[in-house]
């Protein structure tokens, strides 16, 4: 306990505190602007940390990480364009809420959910980090393959009107995910001998294109729905304590899912968000109201993607294994400082580790304060005339797609997928299955094939491991439940 107080005191010193404010602020901004991502923000700030004291540098980076997981919800809710991959599902219910004039409430719920999810993962980080890191090592290739297969089955959950259209969209995504260097044998696939295609269809330009371009086109054509007038008084914007209390179940299960996903390298915040959204939907007494502006649909992904931050820091600090791209950069920053994360870091630099926990707590606190203070400002975005708003979004999208890897190929990829997204929307094909398949397809392929190499071609490996068997059973049960629901809907078409 003393260590924890010491850590908090260290992180509260003037310099670390100032940089934590800066970090949280930049994190929110980077996440909120489509095309700029949290990992990009961290990478840009990394060189500056080389000259800072270790506590200060971690305050800055942790601030960006935590702020980033909160800020993504802003553009998802207000513009229907996710600011970063972690917030892709937040738009499903967040944007309909904004259209009903409840943007402030949606944002408030998103921020509080982020705060509580992050707090939950911080508690895990402080109390049982080494045990959780050991637990995560049980997830080998077959377990990950089964988990991701479960995620792929959830594509069915995003079918609004037609199941076949959702499946077509999903299969299209899976096909795109096979383009580029094959993850096992490093053979270029479908590259037509163009070197640039070897990197494959990277997820971020696709995400920016699919969401932003259709919005820009309909905005420019003047077909954007005009929003009802709403009050911008802070009291009217904030969710009531009663609203938040009603969400406690969603918050608890999403925080747990987020932290667990964070522990597993190679999965990521988008997976955490999707899994918890789906769990919330399945456990809800009225699953059909999801996607039309339900607060649980905002709360679940936001709690999960923030909880992912603490989860991802656990293997990074205790074993020196980064759980996601952001913690990978943090690992580099710590090594430069001469602090090698690993089992010995807690013994040799225990005080420093607790100062990271302190910075984490302060970052969570600062982020929610900054976000809530900014809420009045954010909602003003909805009042910007479309003639100004959409061209500026377009500019950010192009810059963002280019800046990811300094590549024009990604800009064309973004535009191409944007057109695809526009026509899919026009013909009523859901884009979420396509996105999910592009995120999960490569992870599934890699782990499934690796399992078969490990077992020398014996598929039994997926059924012998208990964790993997549980996921496969869940996937099967889910598909059966979807089938039963669909067939019963057939009989009563009026409820569909």
């Amino acid at each position, binding site marked *: 306990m003393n260590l924890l107080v010491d850590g908090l005191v260290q992180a509260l010193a003037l310099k670390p505190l100032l940089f934590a404010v800066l970090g949280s602020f930049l994190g929110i901004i980077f996440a909120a602007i489509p095309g700029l991502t949290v990992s990009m923000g961290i990478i840009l700030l990394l060189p500056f940390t080389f000259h800072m004291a270790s506590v200060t540098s971690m305050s800055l980076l942790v601030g960006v990480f935590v702020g980033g997981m909160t800020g993504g919800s802003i553009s998802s809710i207000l513009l229907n364009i996710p600011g970063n991959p972690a917030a892709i599902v937040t738009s499903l219910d967040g944007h309909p809420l904004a259209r009903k004039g409840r943007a402030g409430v949606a944002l408030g719920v998103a921020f509080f959910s982020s705060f509580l999810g992050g707090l939950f993962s911080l508690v895990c980080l402080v109390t049982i980090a080494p045990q959780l890191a050991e637990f995560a090592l049980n997830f080998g*290739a077959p377990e990950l393959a089964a988990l991701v297969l479960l995620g792929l089955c959830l594509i069915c959950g995003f079918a609004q009107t037609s199941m076949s259209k959702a499946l077509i969209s999903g299969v299209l995504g899976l096909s795109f995910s096979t383009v580029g260097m094959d993850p096992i044998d490093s053979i270029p696939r479908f590259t037509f001998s163009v070197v640039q295609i070897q990197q494959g269809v990277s997820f971020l330009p696709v995400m920016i294109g699919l969401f932003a371009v259709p919005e820009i086109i309909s905005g420019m054509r003047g077909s954007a729905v005009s929003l009802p007038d709403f009050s911008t008084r802070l009291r009217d914007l904030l969710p009531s304590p009663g609203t938040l209390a009603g969400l406690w179940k969603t918050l608890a299960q999403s925080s747990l899912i987020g932290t667990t996903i964070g522990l597993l390298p*190679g999965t990521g915040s988008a997976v955490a968000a999707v899994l918890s959204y789906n769990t919330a939907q399945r456990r809800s007494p009225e699953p059909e109201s999801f996607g039309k502006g339900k607060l649980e649909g905002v709360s679940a992904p936001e709690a999960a993607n923030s909880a992912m931050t603490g989860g991802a820091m656990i293997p990074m600090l205790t074993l020196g294994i980064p759980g996601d791209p952001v913690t990978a950069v943090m690992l580099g920053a710590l*090594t430069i400082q001469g602090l090698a994360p*690993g089992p*010995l870091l807690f013994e040799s630099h225990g005080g420093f580790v607790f100062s990271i926990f302190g910075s984490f707590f302060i970052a969570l606190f600062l982020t929610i304060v900054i976000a809530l203070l900014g809420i009045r400002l954010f909602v003003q975005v909805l009042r910007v005339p479309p003639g100004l708003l959409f061209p500026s979004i377009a500019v950010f999208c192009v810059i963002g797609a280019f800046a990811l890897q300094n590549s024009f190929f990604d800009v064309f990829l973004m535009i191409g997928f944007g057109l695809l997204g526009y026509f899919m929307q026009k013909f009523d094909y859901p884009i979420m299955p396509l996105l999910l398949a592009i995120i999960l397809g490569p992870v599934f392929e890699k782990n499934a094939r690796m399992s078969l190499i490990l077992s020398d071609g014996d598929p039994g490996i997926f059924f012998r491991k208990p964790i993997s068997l549980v996921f496969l059973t869940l996937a099967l049960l889910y598909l059966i439940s979807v089938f039963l629901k669909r067939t019963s809907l057939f009989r009563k078409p009026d409820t569909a």
Partner: protein
Amino acid sequence: MKKYLLVFALAFVVAAVSVAPVSAAYPTKPVEMTITFKAGGAADISGRTVAKAAEKVFGQPIVAVNRPGAGGTIGFAYVKTAPADGYKIGWLSASILTGTTMGKLPYDYRAWDYVSRLVFEGTAIVVRADSPYKSLPDLVKAAKSKTLKIGSAGAGSFTRLTASALAQKAGFKFRHIPLGKRRVPSLLGGEVDAISVHPPEVLALHKAGKVRMLAVSFPKRHPAYPKVPLFSEHGWDVGFYQFRGLHVPKGTPKEAVQALHKAFAAAAKDPKVLATAEKRGFLVSYMGPDKFPAFVAKQNALIKAVVVSLGLDKKKKKMKK
């Protein structure tokens, strides 16, 4: 009088500079250095540190730009097609040789000019602490009687080629598992018997007694892990090491190459570079443009031999049939 002398001296300097050959004007603007891997990784840290130190002698900023993707091929192709004016340079690694020999790039290693080698990085064979193998000979002996699972970063990765070359030298066969980013968790979780990996990734775990570095493929013992023997000490020297250095588009002017050489040779002695090398577990070992091209050619021959023996160069053609 003193004033006049000063003016005279200044005028002389100005005259001397302006009559110097035009090429000596290089560099007149910042140089862009492409790093072919992501920011924050091993290539990025060493590249940026060296570039920062080289700027002092070079006189112009050397701006590092990350162009990652497809195992470095995206960035290498960018440098290949950039104008050969000395203002576009690349931070290369041995991956350029695996990329070209495996046919991921449509040209061979001679498509670039090579300026200088700056650093070596090791490749270690690592097992869990509870593994029965206490030394590299233990592991080799066991591998001769049963097929061990040995993981690496990927099928065509440098770590895999090192493990395969070791197997050829020592006379054993193993099942290769392309673990990608999950290489360390997979070893700790017990999915594989050993992994071939760059030492900095496991150094903290090694010091904590969670894993054991059996041996490392490196020119000499590294001060960060002085007790770990070299492959060569067991008589299984694979002959090639992960190296990093500087290359430029083919046909870059000699003056530019010499100016870069001078700046980077100075960077190799910079105390900051040496301190970072110590922390990050790489070894600074400078080689200039007089010897470096021949070194690259020799490494290419050794790496190509392993790639061909594994059949990695033919896969593309097989797919086409």
